[in-house]
């Protein structure tokens, strides 16, 4: 299959990735090749096969007791934050 510039820009927007104009044709080319490559999957007969989301089939979700184990550590956690004010993470204005 062959993707278009438009397709790649759409995907990049959905994934929130800025691409330069020069990068677009590079990704058009490599992504098209990848989707051609994975199209081999169409050869498999999967009509009666259950999809597999997890490698160990018999495992089920464990549940933890409802206990609070954490104390306030926002100072430590916010040391990695690019912009913080009044203990809040700052982002460009959110408009609803």
């Amino acid at each position: 299959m062959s993707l278009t510039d438009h397709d790649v820009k759409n995907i990049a927007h959905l994934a929130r990735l800025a691409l330069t104009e020069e990068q677009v044709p590079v990704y058009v080319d490599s992504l098209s090749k990848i989707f051609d490559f994975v199209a081999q999957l169409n050869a498999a007969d999967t009509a009666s096969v259950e999809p597999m989301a997890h490698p160990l089939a018999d495992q089920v979700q464990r549940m933890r007791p409802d206990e609070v184990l954490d104390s306030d550590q926002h100072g430590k956690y916010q040391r990695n934050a690019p912009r913080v004010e009044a203990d809040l993470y700052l982002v460009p204005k959110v408009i609803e």
Partner: protein
Amino acid sequence: MTELHHLTLAELNEGLRARRFSSVELAKHFLARIERLNPTLNALITVTAEQALAAAQRADELLASGEAGALAGVPLIHKDIFCTDGVLTTCGSRMLANFVAPYDATIVEKLSQSGVVMLGKANMDEFAMGSSNETSYYGPVKNPWDLKKVPGGSSGGSAAAVAARLAPVATATDTGGSIRQPAALTGLTGLKPTYGRVSRYGMIAFASSLDQAGTLTYTAKDAALVLRDMAGFDPRDSTSVDTPVPDYVAALDQPLKGLKIGLLKEFFEGGLEESTAKLIREALQVYERLGAQLIEVSLPNLPLSVPTYYVVAPAECSSNLSRFDGVRFGYRCENPKDLVDLYKRSRGEGFGAEVKRRIMTGTYVLSAGYYDAYYLRAQKVRRLITDDFARAFQQVDVLMGPTSPTPAFDIGAKVDDPITMYLNDIYTIGANLAGLPALSIPCGSVGGLPVGLQIIGPHFAEAKLLNVAHGYQNETLWHRDIPKGYE
């Protein structure tokens, strides 16, 4: 003369306990090698000399008091995908070039409790996406066997460091072959345990249903020693399995007579180089001499493992990497004009080309209208492949074949062609899709470059795999080879 870096981890461990040398001496010895050799290899992103010496000091005290953990004083390098409290944790990415983890990954914690001394953090493909260690923001890692060659990836820094004897062990992770392929390309023993055997907590996720942490060591015995303290149930990881950790070391010496080895027909087809194939056949003869029986088996759906992987892994990665948005940690672009601009430029500038390619691949296969055709279909083929393996293990104890179709290739040779690069993992991906344990051991060399034999077992058969690998290493010396210039 035998130098400290010629000793295996098991020998070092024994020497420490016998007080033949101290942990501080060991740490200093390896740190000096790192200082001298790493600038050429680029195997480490961060060297934690000060902490290492302090930890070694503590280990010596514990060894003296007789209260030391099983691996007290043993030097180790962590792949930079594991969060280490208070230490830079980059995942090989510009996105995390300033990220100091505020906590320890479970395996970091467990190994610390066991007494290991962390020397530093290993270079890697960015977010573990690559097979050559060329996608790292910190530049390619060089293969100590030939500096023009790649060490494999994504755990290329871990592999190059251990191969160059900068440490006797490095942790690593394997999502599609990222432990085994570098092990093969650098002449090491690389173990990827069963999915769920080792906690993923604190390991920065690439593809959650495939990622598994393991080790790069010289020998299977060394791997057994480290895995024993690294494995186990972790209540913080829902996918970690609550089943006891056997004594892998105790099981090493079981005789291999009667072992049923499955030869994967599909592994000897396609792009396998004859020189590599020859070495694999020779290795199999060693097993025959030890009394093993060779049985050819076929996994008809295995050829679909690479395309399956290149749908499943990017899909999971596209979602896992959404948290890198320039808000709470990591790279943030300059002067974003609005929220969307903040996201797009922080991510566009913070991620490298291959990571962006995988995120876009994954975004596409999950998007409306394509989910069934790609993602759901891949999930179904994944089951077919897994079922193939399960059938094979009804007939045989382990499966064997090559780890990589070729020995190490030139740096830069495959960077422009993702498909060719992806096909490097053709023999390793199956085990990830099925969650199986697998390891690679050195079995010879071609033109001075090591070749790896891959051994795959059923779920939770790590003890058997290590036993089988150890049996081979008792008969051969490939695992003792040290690259020229690093003796």
